[in-house]
């Protein structure tokens, strides 16, 4: 007698227990602390905060630990947690011009007010594995400028003062919220930027790269990249003014792109904008390239490349959605597979009986009806 396979519940429990064991690994090796992750894997933590849409270093560190270092899994954990949090309102727009910059560079000018400030960058490191880091060498305090970090003028504002770059319109009305409203294309730029800001770094990187290789070339200059902390303020109607609720570290990238001008607008540069939580320069730059590409229609440019296609980019940039749907293919599909098997067997039998040629040679007169089943 055949007994159908049972025991899904026990199998799941066992899988979870094995996962917990493998996550911990060799028990003779000390367990990672959240402080260690937050301090020493800080850029991983930044990515999880950015794409998890939740600014909380400790929770991001916990998610990385729990996910065994699988950052997309960690992002998913953080997203699933944040969705349960009450939403009190929205902040005032942060002023990145007032950012206490730790890094600020421009590719457009040799020197400028505030100067070029390299900050803690991998740029110009020689990518040579450092055997000393196998241990825990003494690391002297980093060199910094004297005095506290200060606000420096944005390059876009320098160009703006000359009228050579498109105006940066102040935000009006309520910002949209991609968590609270179903997507409807075309999106407002605010909604689009929100989607990009928490979009997958790898996806945006590849799309941004494609624009440089001619798939919607936009002649970008890295106008400015700045990293540092900004104050977050929330307007309280009871008080009638905004109060500071905390500080967040952000990376902002303003790309300066070419534009010839039109009947309505004089020749001027255009902008591509990237803004992400934490120190995440690659993501901010890729986002700025994608933002500019997605503005094609605004500037009357032909939409010819994937990076310019809003529905394509925004519908596929979320790695939590993407990983879920790609990985769902491992769920059982045997009912549908059986349906396909049945059809293929039928068609194979007809083929072998010599009846397999297309049943209809002339284009059919399409007479549509609906079966009353």
């Amino acid at each position, binding site marked *: 007698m055949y007994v159908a396979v049972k025991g899904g519940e026990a199998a799941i429990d066992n899988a979870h227990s094995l996962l917990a064991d493998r996550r911990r690994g060799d028990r003779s090796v000390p367990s990672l602390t959240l402080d260690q992750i937050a301090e020493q894997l800080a850029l991983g933590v930044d990515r999880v905060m950015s794409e998890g849409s939740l600014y909380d270093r400790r929770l991001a560190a*916990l998610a990385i630990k729990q996910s065994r270092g699988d950052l997309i899994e960690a992002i998913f954990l953080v997203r699933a947690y944040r969705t349960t949090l009450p939403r009190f309102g929205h902040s005032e727009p942060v002023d990145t011009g007032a950012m206490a910059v730790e890094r600020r560079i421009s590719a457009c000018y040799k020197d400028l007010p505030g100067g070029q400030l390299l900050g803690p960058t991998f740029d110009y490191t020689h990518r040579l594995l450092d055997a000393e880091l196998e241990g825990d060498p003494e690391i002297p305090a980093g060199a910094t400028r004297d005095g506290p970090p200060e606000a420096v003028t944005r390059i876009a504002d320098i160009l703006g003062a000359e009228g050579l770059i498109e105006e940066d319109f102040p935000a009006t009305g309520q910002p949209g919220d991609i968590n609270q409203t179903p997507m409807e294309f075309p999106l407002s730029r605010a909604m689009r930027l929100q989607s990009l800001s928490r979009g997958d770094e790898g996806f945006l990187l590849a799309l941004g790269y494609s624009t440089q290789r001619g798939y919607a070339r936009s002649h970008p200059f890295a106008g400015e990249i700045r990293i540092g902390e900004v104050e977050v303020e929330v307007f309280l109607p009871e008080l009638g003014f905004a109060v500071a609720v905390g500080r967040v570290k952000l990376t902002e990238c303003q790309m300066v792109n070419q534009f010839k001008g039109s009947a309505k607008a004089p020749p001027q540069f255009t902008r591509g904008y990237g803004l992400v939580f934490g120190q995440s320069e690659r993501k901010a730059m890729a986002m700025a390239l994608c933002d500019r590409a997605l503005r094609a229609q605004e500037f009357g440019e032909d939409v010819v490349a994937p990076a310019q296609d809003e529905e394509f980019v925004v519908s596929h940039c979320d790695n939590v959605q993407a990983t879920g749907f790609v990985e769902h293919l491992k769920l059982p599909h045997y009912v549908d597979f059986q349906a396909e098997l049945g059809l293929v067997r039928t*068609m194979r039998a007809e083929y072998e009986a010599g009846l397999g040629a297309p049943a209809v040679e002339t284009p059919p007169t399409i007479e549509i009806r609906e079966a009353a089943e």
Partner: protein
Amino acid sequence: MNAHHQASNYNFAYLDEQTKRMIRRAILKAIAIPGYQVPFASREMPMPYGWGTGGVQVTAAILGPEDVLKVIDQGADDTTNAVSIRKFFQRVADVETTTKTADATIIQTRHRIPETPLRLGQVLVYQVPIPEPLRFLEPRETETRKMHALEEYGLMHVKLYEDIARNGHIATTYAYPVKVEGRYVMDPSPTPKFDNPKMHMSEALQLFGAGREKRIYALPPYTEVVSLDFEDHPFEVQRFDKPCALCGAEAVYLDEVVLDDRGGRMFVCSDTDHCETRRVEGHRGEMGGEAA
């Protein structure tokens, strides 16, 4: 901050009340416009997109303490994802669960409709991966929405007919498109077309949730649901040569089980509750052993 919430730290049925209201409003609209996909602000759930987040949100929004919940995947109550979703609702809603189709007030399903006819008052909640039946003909939402608005469904018929011209058959065996009340072409979710006739004039309310794609749609009871076809190629459901090897049921959907690597096969009911109920009643198939 303690991120390790116990189930009791979450609201009844996990979702916050604002989210439930938003989903409930969408469900009412979906019922009022059968077959039309209502956009909703789908939330992130603690299980992956594509693994039933839409169905879970719909179930969570309608579920009450009096409900009896059944969860199936591939027709079976003990497939891993069905087990996982059932456990989730036991944990966050402390709701009674069952494997018996007849005892359930809400049945959440992936890929099957139970063999036992559903009755008035029952709700069948489908997990839907791609709610748009026109998506594989036209990937753009902006375009497919226009096609629904204008009732432009010619493309779908052309696609089905191209199948016939190329293969001699309509090559769609699951997620077979239906027309609802003569108006909207609708995706029945990836159920085998065998189940399409069960949707027609069903006594149960049928709700469809697509989490990743952020759509909810519905079929009220007693709704006309017609599978698309042609005069010379009428819609047909799958037929199996043999009855279920365990319970002897005929005219049900069967799973193929590979018994060995020498070509041994058996076919058994995909609906595990249906099969078990029949065996308890004393029915036996050729491999079902002796009746008790």
